[in-house]
């Protein structure tokens, strides 16, 4: 019986992990622009410097 409790806790924590991952992806703006990343990945040369977001973090 107790093994079910362990399974239950395990399953719910994995589900919670996915929930956190989802919330994080929304928060970091991954759904703000669904059109440019698919194009960006096909382009050969990556911009030399990192995106403006990380630039903001560096500068703060």
């Amino acid at each position, binding site marked *: 019986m107790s093994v079910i409790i362990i399974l239950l806790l395990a399953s719910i924590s994995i*589900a919670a992990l996915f*929930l956190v991952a989802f919330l994080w992806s929304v928060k970091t703006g991954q759904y*703000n622009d669904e059109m440019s990343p698919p194009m960006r990945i096909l382009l050969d040369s990556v911009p030399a410097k990192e995106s403006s977001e990380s*630039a903001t973090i560096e500068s703060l």
Partner: protein
Amino acid sequence: MSDPSVSQKSKVQCYHCGEDCDEKTIVAHDKHFCCDGCKMVFEILNKTGMCDYYSISDNPGTNQRIKIREDKFAFLDEQKIQSALLSFTNDSETHVNFYLPQMHCSSCLWLLENLHRLNEYVISSKVNFERKEADIVFDHRRVSMRQVAELLTSIGYEPYISFKDLKQQRPSLNMSKIYKLGVAGFCFANIMLFSFPEYLGIDSQELFLQGTFRYMNIILSLPVFFYSSSEFYISAWKSLKHGFLNIDAPIVLAVVVAFARSLYEVLSGTGAGYFDSMTGIVFFMLIGRVLQDKTYQQLSFERDYTAYFPIAVTRIKNNQSTSVALPDIVLDDTILIHHQELIPADGILTRGKALIDYSFVTGESIPVEKEMGEIVYAGGKQIGSNIEILVIKEVSQSYLTKLWNRSELQSDRNDNERSFVHLLSRYFTWILFTIAISASIYWWAIDPSKIGHVITSVLIVACPCSLLLSNTFTNGNILRRLGRNQFYLRNAQTIEDIANINYIVFDKTGTLTTGRYQDINYDGEVLNESLKQKIAVLASHSTHPMSKAIALWAKQANTQNNQVVDFGETPGRGIQGIVEGDLLKLGSAFFVKKAEQGSALDSAVFVSVNGKVYGRFGFRNHYREQVPAIMKRLRKLGYPISILSGDNAGEKDYLEQLLGKDTPILFHQKPEDKLEAIKMIQATGKKVMMVGDGLNDAGALKQADVGIAITENTATFTPASDVILEASMLPKFHQFLLLCKANKVLVWTAFVVSILYNIVGESFAVSGHLSPMVAAILMPASSLTILLISFGASNLISWKMGLK
């Protein structure tokens, strides 16, 4: 660098923008270009080794034929304007967000994200393709904002900066509903899982396990009850405060009752409660809300006059010209208006020759000439040379601004009140209470102990969610379908409104006509090649649109540089000059023939050579090719049609031939007249749809039951309207109307199905047999059926119509 030479080939595509090089082709670097602008962009990119731009997609550029004035972005040197535009700055870098409407393909994305290769002081740039914006970070100690804007302009992406940008920041995307949806989905799925043992009959010995599952459910339902549903609590509370019950009220009631009863059942140990049904309601309803929000983020329908105005103008003070922000313009300032600039405030013309295109405000397609001392109104666009005007009314007081601020345009129709769903929702709540009360009276007589059970189950199972979902999902899907066909609707309510339309009014200029090119027909003596050439040379010396049209018409392939001697232009009359020894005159009847002749309606230009009148050029607006076909189809569908035009009646015959004699066609309609005309038709009990394009239609668009703004390019600004339609999709106009009508049938079908589900659920509830399992099956089953009906059927219908 090879010297650009002029070739005579026709139908060559420009290497940069892909347009046909019709006038002359410039050859440089073994590539063909349609104009110097396109060539220059290529050279800039070539110099920095960025020609990958051209290999990512074919002819990725935008046409550069219209040159941008050199110091157009001088206003960006102004500290005040800069600080209003930038989003972040410290001592080494500045972040700014520019709207670049020309962005359209992956090459654009690549080029804009490689800006740092063109200018080393640009630190980085990141594109948001959906919003057509670029976040640019630059080192402001080395490069100014103006230089960044000019860099963008030089490669063909001119930033669009308007007065509106100064006043407020664009609202950031509201993500809270998505968080709520995520949390609700997580809790709903897990509660469903933990409820299975209960439904499948858990062993009575496993009391501990049963208890664990029930308490886990309570814990999981808390975030849904307190966090995810807050959306509905707020909306229901707001409507309650205004004294009516909206559709969220029964949802809130169901959620609260289900939660309270489930809590009581679990704590008292009498049952498992309805946690899964409750979280299910919230989850499905939130999906509906998120879909609703998501459909139209990228297009803004709420526009005011400020979006049209330039951000700054040139003010002349003590013989010095400075750029000042528009709000700082005060009375008695002298401002300089350049070619193609919008006049921002009413004023008196003090210097220069004004030729003002008011088509945006009045719909009149031919520009008006103004002499010094005359009043010019805001909203007109100056064509030709620079002019100076003395401001007599501030920007906020001008004619254009007042036009916009008329009371008709201000009052927003209350969308919620009109929808039949919301009408029904009011009754829904009362019907629900009636059922609950009569059931409890019945059970009071038979078995009073069951009253509590029956009342709560009536409220829980009768959740209106399938009713609401039928509407949200069907409408949302149709909205997306129409959007894919470049028919963008303001909201779901508009679909219902379009289905109810029984009268259509079209504007002429810019809507039925393209407004760009004019068709020319020439009558009179035959002009030989060399004479045509001479006319072209003379006409090309004037900036008047009619002259330009004639120049284009008469232009010969073998362009020689003929000189015009003694060129003279009499404003409002005509032009004359000596070309290769012949005195040519182009202009009005009076100017050319010295006689008042010809109808005032027709805008005609006469031509004479050495005093002998050869003939006249007639002008007609260029109608969109599909117009006759659309009119025929609309009439077949039984819609009466009217035409309102701000233009003169010169094309009455043509329009009558197109539409039949019985169609009302009104000319010389000022913006106010158009609005009144719509009101008149509405007074006869008709539901009117207005199709227009310019600011001159803004009043009528808003007054009409449905206003449709037609645009050549959705990135440009259109007046406030319910619908924005891409001009190229006009041939499918009647299909859009039919699809909206089909949508009504679908909504009703889904609606009837959900009523049936409610009746089944209620009969379980009233008879006192509603077990949590029945509720748990009914809830998702009803929602899924609705989804199937709305998505399946609407996709099938639009597919059959051949829409994308």
